[in-house]
């Protein structure tokens, strides 16, 4: 069976600064992987490069998604094929209502896959049911994308999109940042509903706290641009006690 995501020997530079120094990661369908590590270890860089954010220079290695080389694909092609990045800091887009944005994005993905556009009533029905489950009032969707949203509302809006687009790979970049415990629980519940044997998740986080709510199958520790240790969910607890310092020494 082909892995859903295979990252092999990935080296990435920003300007002349190498951030990832040969990273390997394999994620199969149905698995939830947590990537932990201190600030500056390259966790977010990995998520950005998988999603296709400009400004990163891949100097070695490859990223295969469903066996295809994603580095050759534009970000929108990756999205249409099922890659979804939930942003650490979702942007605000004044003048574009969330509704319009969701419909445009969903139809763009469907079009890229050769599927017919969703009719407005079907689309509305879909959005309404997903929004209800995430406690997102429909009024909020009539406002500009994320404009005036709280941190928790922005993250819920990301999960709403995830639920709507049904991607096969969800990368959650520091989903817990800026959330209090109640907001975190709502967001985590939204994510857990989307766990399925057809979908994999990569949960990037600095803190173990999030992993109490989204329990991973595998945990990887990143330090200085490499995966320095991999294990089961117990590794996260271990880290909580001993901290990242041990790995920083190892990587150096």
């Amino acid at each position, binding site marked *: 069976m082909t892995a859903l995501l295979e990252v092999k020997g990935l080296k990435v530079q920003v300007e002349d600064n190498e951030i990832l120094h040969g990273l390997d990661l394999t994620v199969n369908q149905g698995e939830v992987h947590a990537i932990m590590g201190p600030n500056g270890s390259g966790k977010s860089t990995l998520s950005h490069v998988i999603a*296709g954010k400009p400004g990163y220079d891949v100097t070695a290695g490859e990223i295969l998604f469903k066996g295809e080389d994603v580095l050759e694909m*534009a970000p*929108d092609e990756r999205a249409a094929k099922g890659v979804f990045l939930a942003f650490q800091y979702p942007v605000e887009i004044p*003048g*574009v209502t969330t509704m319009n944005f969701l419909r*445009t994005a969903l139809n*763009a993905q469907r079009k890229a896959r050769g599927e017919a556009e969703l009719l407005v009533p079907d689309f509305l029905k879909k959005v309404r049911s997903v929004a209800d489950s995430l406690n997102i009032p429909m009024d909020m969707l009539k406002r500009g994308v994320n404009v005036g949203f709280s941190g928790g509302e922005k993250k819920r809006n990301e999960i709403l*999109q995830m639920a709507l687009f049904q991607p096969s790979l969800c990368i959650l970049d520091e989903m817990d940042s800026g959330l209090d415990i109640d907001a975190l629980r709502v967001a985590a519940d939204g994510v857990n509903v989307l766990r399925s044997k057809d979908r994999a998740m990569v949960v990037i986080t600095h803190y173990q706290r999030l992993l109490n709510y989204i329990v991973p199958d595998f945990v990887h520790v990143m330090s200085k641009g490499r995966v320095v240790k991999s294990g089961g969910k117990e590794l996260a607890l271990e880290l909580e006690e001993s901290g990242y310092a041990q790995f920083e020494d190892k990587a150096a």
Partner: protein
Amino acid sequence: MNVALVKPTTDHALGELFAAAQSRLPGSGTVAEVRQIAFDDFVRRGLPHRRIEEWKYTDLRALLREVAPLAPAPDQAAFARAAKAVKSLGIDSTQKLVLVDGVFAPQLSDVTALEAGVHVRALREVLEDNDNKVRADLLKTSVASDAMISLNAALATDGVVIDVAEGIALAKPVHIVHVATNSSTSLVTRSLLKVGKGAHMTFVESFVAAEGAESYQTHDSVVIWIGDGAELQHVRLMEDALDAANISTGIVTIGAKAKLNTFNLTNGGNVSRYQGFITFAGEGSELTTNGVNLLGARRHGDTTLVVDHAVPHCTSREVFRSVLDDRAHSVFQGRIIVRPDAQKTDGKMMTRALLLSDEAEADNKPELEIFADDVTCGHGATAGALDESLLFYLRARGLPENEAQALLIAAFVGEAIESIVDDNLRDFAVAAAERWLATRG
């Protein structure tokens, strides 16, 4: 540029222009005298050029070279083509007053279906009415001394004179539609609108080309008085042919406790300038103005606004946006004058340019002339490309690059279009912006 060399040939051409136009120009006696004075003024100045401060960024000697001869009076075929153009505008919700090649066309207008309280006469008819002692005043302007205003007064062939009665609220917008059917000629028009005290109305101006009309020049002016307590929604939609020129002037006087909300869209013309002179003549009035220039190729669009706070306690807000592609050039000049007595004035202007190409240019010249000491005035400007982080967000959600750009541009323009109160006109402006976006491919 050697102005001395250029000018004599221009003078010569101008003399012929006026002579040739004589038979087309309505009004004798005092009207003819006013025209002659205006024309002499224009000949003395010639087309404005870069050494004239107000025209520094829009050098008409370089951009226009000369004033094209007047368009011939439209024949039946021209009216038929104009009718088609009016129809394809797709705005059904207005009371239209159609000017074809600079001539009022009642047969294409809604003259018999005007709302009660709206009185319309052709400018030509008023100028030719020798019993009307003030007819020549219709061609005079006191607010600004400007070569193009003089040219307009000298050569205006027609226009409409609109009177809206005091205290009424119009259900439908009054809509002047300028249609060009001829190529390489000038359309010179002048219209006047008087909004009675306490009246509420929407006034629309559209500029369009009939199929096949190319390289023409529109020279329009509109003079508006807003009575005390009146509210005017003014929407201007310039969608002239892409190789045409449009040099237009708006002169507005606002009474006391009145409101003016203006929106200008420049979505056509190779060379265009809209210069607005807005004067607060009564206390407690408000002005909001929004403008959008959508320019591509090597097109040049200039919006120049002079807001004169001549009296105290008035508020003005100007937000001007431009979206520039290829080697387009957008100009915004905004001057706010606060007279010595105009205390408690609150005047602000803002310019935002979206540059889609490295070779596009946006010039911005704000000027504050403040002679009172208890006022709030300010200006700001931003210019830049589309935000990369917003583009990536949209692309990460599946939007191809061109669609992501289009969505962000539409949002940028949409914030201005939101200021249009009338639903149909707002939809029309949105559609116009979408048409522009579609041409980008």
